[in-house]
């Protein structure tokens, strides 16, 4: 044998060694590695290093055979399947043994999961809106950012893009973009309104069938860009000519037997234009924020066939594939700068926003779309996670509390030879089992609650149980909840020392005690936070709904001026006043609760400073408007037919007066557009738009010959039915070509705060649930505490403690927890709610009593929850409790 020991030694590739030590049985590793090493030294001498390395590989691989592998069975560990079965068996036994605790645990978790699932259904439903289009990633909406005299604002309705100016056709933005940018594949306008007041249904007629239907105008690319499915007709030719219309399946069935039959038929529109039905599309569903039952070719708006209120309209584009949106946005800005012919101090920039983001972020901040419904989606996602955490904390807390009882079990298991990993597995198995049971309960609850939830969130959601992704989500959620809630008990219990446990020496360490209290405090803080939030939100919603607006919104019905209603207004008014259920009739150019129109340039007044401008909301009304609306005149008088000059008179509100800086306003000259007149009266400020906005300057005049606007009818209380009959009758006489369509002012007003109302309802429900779950946790803790201290209470009673003192002693502990939670939650709640209320120009104050009430009720609820347990503990016969040992 060659004396190998004298050779210089070479180090073989290290990670092969690692491979060996990973896979080969530990008692063989020394031999194997030694063999490999020695062989390597020999083969280097014989073959050189590179060949030796290759050889080394082969040698190492030769050890990859079963006889060298680690064997799981050779240790004391049982087979994995047996083990898992055992985990679940013991878990099941424990669950059954501690029925009360298990029920509390499962119930809490199930409630938490129910909230979580419901909220996330809602969130998912919100997120899907407008994101269902095939070309979604390449669809954008344009918006403008306008800077005027230092004010920055933005919107989707881009100003000053003419379709028809001075009688000449000019390209609109959509057309110009397609010509100027090779990146733009398609572009379309979309305008729901062509006429004031906005968003009214229009009358369609086929033969004798007449219906009022809401719809819009859109360009010929519309159906090519968006994935609104066509039932009949082709997307390419749906809107390509001026006399074309596309209608929904629903609308098709209103007039014809089947969608196919509708194709090629001619519908009469507003009794003055005929449109050929070119396509029938599936009814727009809730996943679309654009809601329309018909689309008229955009060309009608360009050629002036259909009037539109102004020259602003949303524009949507589809970029070609592989276009960089950022670069395109940059080009767009340059393009806009070249084209603009805006006055000085007035700068308009164009921007693009992904179409799918529009629904959730449509509020403009600093001229760019930023917030919107997204906030609510985020808030509720947060609430969902909070509630789930609260539920998990329950579990954790109870399991930790119970752990003293189970410490002995752990001790015995450890003595018999259970490893720590095995114990962790056992406890996690338990929590997973419970969380799966909770999931099943939650799914049952969700399917029971979903109809109600749909009802008040105004959605049509269903559990997407047919989707495998959703199951993955559910299982992931359950496992996460199980692991989260089982982790602390598992780690804590498995770390116990068997010797101490079996000697009975375990006490909770200070830190474990603090941990439990900390969890309870955390839980209660979240609940109190939710409770305060709910109170504030519902108070604000109440405030908004019931605030005295400065006018009477009850008992007013209004209808749009259309057809002959303007021409025959006097006749109609006279006729209506003779019919039952109608006490007053008047008109207005805009619905008074939500005035959209706002302008500053056409207004001048006596004493106006150079360069001074006030942005007015102008409205033209009839003579009885002020009277009918119950508006208060603070100075001067209201319009009257007795003064012939009142057709050229104006009234303004107090805000207008302050902003104009006018003193002694009565009789001062003021002009709007070409109309000149004098101020005859000052109106007390009343709310002319949503309470999110401050009251704006208002200017009112009398015009009884406008061909747009609304006719308002006041009914005596309780006579709505008679009024509607009368309206029907009068309308049929005066305006036979148009079916009657009417609205109630108070209902329309409530609609402005729909999202707040939903938020209020949702948060009510979820706050109650959060409190309920937290109370379950408290109940569990109280039960445990009472059980733990049985002997202590027995001894106290023997020594002469009264029931009263024992109950007090017990309750003190829980009162402390609630108080600490309150101290933590209150400032956070104050900060958050203050922020939320900032979004309203008019809001309720954050009163101290809201906080006091929440704190007091949290305390009361907590005491009630624990009282039963404490009473039982205190009333127990000490002889019995002491004899047990």
């Amino acid at each position: 044998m060659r004396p190998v020991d004298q050779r210089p030694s070479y180090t073989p590739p290290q990670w092969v060694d690692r491979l060996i030590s990973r896979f080969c049985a530990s008692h063989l590793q020394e031999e194997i590695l030694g063999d490999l090493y020695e062989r390597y030294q020999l083969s280097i001498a014989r073959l050189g290093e590179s060949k030796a390395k290759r050889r080394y590989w082969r040698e190492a691989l030769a050890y990859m055979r079963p006889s060298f592998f680690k064997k799981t069975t050779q240790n004391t560990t049982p087979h994995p399947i047996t083990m898992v079965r055992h985990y679940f068996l013991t878990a099941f036994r424990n669950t059954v043994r501690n029925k009360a605790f298990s029920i509390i645990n499962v119930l809490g978790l199930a409630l938490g999961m129910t909230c979580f699932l419901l909220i996330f259904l809602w969130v998912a439903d919100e997120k899907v809106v407008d994101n269902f289009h095939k070309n979604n990633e390449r669809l954008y909406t344009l918006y403008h950012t306008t800077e005027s005299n230092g004010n920055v604002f933005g919107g989707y309705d881009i100003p000053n893009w003419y379709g028809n100016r001075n009688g000449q056709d000019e390209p609109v933005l959509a057309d110009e973009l397609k010509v100027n940018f090779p990146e733009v594949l398609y572009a379309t306008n979309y305008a729901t309104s062509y006429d004031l007041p906005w968003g009214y249904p229009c009358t369609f007629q086929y033969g004798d069938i007449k219906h009022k239907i809401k719809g819009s105008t859109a360009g010929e690319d519309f159906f090519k860009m968006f994935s609104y499915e066509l039932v009949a007709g082709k997307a390419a030719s749906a809107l390509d000519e001026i006399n074309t219309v596309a209608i929904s399946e629903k609308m098709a069935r209103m007039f014809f037997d089947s969608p196919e039959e509708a194709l090629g038929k001619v519908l009469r529109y507003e009794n003055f234009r005929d449109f050929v039905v070119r396509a029938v599309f599936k009814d727009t569903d809730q996943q679309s924020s654009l809601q329309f039952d018909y689309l008229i070719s955009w060309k009608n708006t360009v050629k002036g066939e259909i009037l539109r209120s102004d020259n602003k309209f949303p524009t949507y584009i589809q970029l070609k594939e592989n276009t960089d949106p950022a670069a395109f946005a940059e080009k767009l800005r340059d393009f806009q700068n070249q084209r603009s012919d805006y006055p000085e101090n007035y700068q308009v920039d164009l921007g693009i926003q992904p179409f799918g983001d529009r629904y959730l972020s449509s509020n403009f901040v600093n001229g760019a779309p930023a917030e919107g419904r997204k906030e609510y989606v985020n808030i509720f996602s947060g609430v969902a996670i909070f509630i789930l955490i609260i539920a998990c904390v329950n579990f954790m807390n109870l399991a930790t509390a119970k752990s003293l009882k189970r410490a002995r079990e752990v001790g015995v298991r450890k003595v018999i030879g259970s490893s720590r990993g095995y114990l962790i597995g056992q406890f996690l198995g338990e929590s997973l089992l419970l969380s799966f049971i909770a999931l099943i309960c939650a799914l049952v609850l969700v399917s029971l609650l979903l109809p109600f939830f749909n009802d008040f969130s105004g959605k049509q959601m269903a559990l997407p149980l047919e989707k495998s992704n959703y199951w993955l989500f559910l299982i992931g959620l359950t496992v996460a909840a199980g692991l989260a809630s089982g982790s602390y008990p598992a780690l804590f219990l498995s770390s116990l020392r068997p010797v101490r446990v079996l000697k009975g020496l375990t006490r909770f360490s200070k830190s474990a005690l603090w941990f439990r209290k900390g969890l309870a405090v955390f839980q209660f803080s979240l609940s109190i936070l939710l409770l305060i939030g709910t109170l504030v939100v519902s108070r604000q919603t109440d405030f908004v709904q019931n605030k005295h607006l400065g006018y009477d919104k009850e008992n007013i019905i209004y209808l749009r001026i259309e057809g002959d209603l303007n021409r025959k207004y006097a006749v109609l008014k006279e006729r209506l006043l003779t019919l039952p259920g109608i006490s007053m009739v008047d008109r207005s150019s805009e619905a008074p609760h939500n005035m959209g129109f706002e302008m500053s340039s056409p207004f001048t007044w006596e004493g106006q400073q150079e360069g001074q401008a006030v942005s007015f909301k102008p409205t033209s009304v009839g003579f009885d408007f002020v009277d009918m609306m119950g508006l208060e005149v603070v100075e001067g008088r209201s319009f009257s037919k007795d003064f012939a000059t009142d057709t050229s008179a104006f009234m303004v509100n107090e805000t207008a007066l302050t902003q104009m800086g006018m003193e002694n306003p009565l009789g001062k000259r003021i002009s709007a557009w070409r109309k000149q007149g004098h101020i005859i009266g000052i109106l007390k400020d009343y709310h002319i738009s949503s309470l999110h906005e401050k009251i704006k300057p208002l200017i009112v005049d009398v015009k009884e010959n406008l061909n747009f606007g609304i006719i308002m009818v006041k009914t005596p209380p309780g006579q709505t039915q008679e009024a509607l009959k009368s309206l029907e009758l009068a309308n049929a006489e005066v305006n036979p070509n148009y079916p009657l369509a009417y609205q109630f002012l108070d209902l329309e007003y409530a609609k402005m705060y729909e999202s707040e109302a939903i938020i209020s309802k949702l948060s009510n429900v979820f706050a109650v649930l959060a409190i309920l779950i937290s109370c379950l946790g408290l109940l569990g803790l109280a039960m445990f505490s009472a059980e733990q201290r049985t002997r202590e209470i027995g001894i106290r009673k023997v020594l002469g403690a009264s029931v009263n003192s024992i109950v007090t002693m017990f309750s003190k502990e829980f009162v402390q927890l609630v108080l600490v939670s309150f101290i933590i939650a209150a400032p956070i709640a104050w900060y958050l709610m203050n922020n939320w209320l900032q979004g309203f120009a008019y809001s309720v104050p954050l009163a101290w009593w809201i906080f006091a009430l929440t704190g007091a009720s949290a305390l009361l609820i907590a005491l009630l929850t624990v009282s039963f347990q404490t009473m039982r503990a205190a009333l127990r016969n000490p002889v019995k409790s002491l004899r047990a040992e």
Partner: protein
Amino acid sequence: MRRSDLGEFEEIVLLTVAVLNPAAYSVMIAEELEQQTGKTVTTGAVHSALQRLEKKGFLTSEMGEATAARGGRRKRLFTVTVAGSKILHEVKAVRDNLWSRVTPQGMPQINIS
């Protein structure tokens, strides 16, 4: 017991242990076999055969001392047991007996260099 039968590779390893005694361990056996047969023999294969032989009771082993050539690790030294010796002899007897009965016409003649 079929398990106590001796495979061909096992037989040759067992024999080599006897040859190399008292320094019979996996690396040396593998080297020896490579020299004898001219084929690559991995220590893994040898080691595995040694394990089987020991399980069948034909070999015993003990740990030797650590050497630098093995990176400071010990080696396992093997010796043939009585049962091992017996089976080797039996196998040899069977073969000798068979060889002795092969007539020149029994198989084609080849020249062994």
